[in-house]
């Protein structure tokens, strides 16, 4: 039997059924975005960082020194790979992560309180400003956390942990009436 895993989102089963209308605090699950890991070759870390931040075609998330996640809403996975290859030719290793990572977008007035239940970082805007991103633990799951707005965060998690993280986030957000749906 041949299954087409490409078209099956990791959270299809969780989000099956009639969606509730989004409340003030909402968790949007990204699909159809391209995610790639960029690893700078030895000695090219600074050059790659400069090149990656020189364009607005995609978002760049810091993972570690010389390592970033690149998220694109418009490119296909192949398109993003080509774009990155052209941009930083022979300075960086690109590994497609589009099917390996799941993107969670948490927004609403209570996001910081919700995240504080699982993430051991100071999320005050003076400590974790808009545009900042870093790897962290959410509960016991390793995620990349990024602040995309005053009250908006993005979490990128490994696909195999997506269901656990989804359950955790919904439990963390239950007292704030957190709703969830696939992003439009």
């Amino acid at each position, binding site marked *: 039997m041949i299954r087409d895993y490409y078209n099956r989102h990791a959270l299809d089963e969780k989000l099956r059924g009639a969606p509730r209308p989004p409340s003030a605090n909402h968790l949007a699950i990204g699909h159809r975005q391209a995610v790639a890991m960029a690893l700078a070759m030895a000695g090219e870390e600074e050059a790659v960082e400069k090149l990656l931040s020189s364009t607005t075609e995609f978002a760049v998330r810091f*993972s*570690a*020194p010389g390592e970033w996640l690149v998220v694109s809403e418009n490119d296909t996975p192949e398109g993003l790979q080509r774009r990155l290859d052209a941009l930083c030719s022979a300075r960086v290793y690109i590994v497609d992560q589009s099917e390996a990572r799941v993107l969670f977008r948490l927004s609403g007035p209570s996001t910081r309180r919700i995240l504080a239940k699982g993430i*051991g*970082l100071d999320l005050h805007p003076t*400590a974790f400003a808009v545009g900042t991103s870093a790897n962290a*633990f959410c509960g016991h799951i390793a995620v990349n956390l990024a602040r995309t707005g005053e009250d908006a965060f993005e979490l990128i998690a490994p696909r195999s942990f997506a269901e656990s993280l989804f359950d955790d986030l919904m439990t963390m957000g239950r007292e704030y009436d957190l709703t969830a749906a696939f992003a439009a």
Partner: protein
Amino acid sequence: MASLITCPHCGVRPKEEFAIRGDASLLRPAPTASDEAWHDYVYVRANPRGRTLEHWQHVGGCRRFLVVERDTFTHEVHSVTDGAAFARENGR
């Protein structure tokens, strides 16, 4: 134990994000060194009361090896350095 570690790459983080990988002050003996030297390097550890140098790996963040200088008695953290930078500074 020190509960907050300031990773040079990720900022202030709880100790739960780190794996402690032991004494960072030891120097690996030459391959031809005596069995006693290798035995000491692999097995023999002090249990100091006071300042220690340790390898901490930031597994929940940047995954880099860090060298943490901390006090086992007062729980104070004196410095956190990236492992590669530490090796360079100390000519290892």
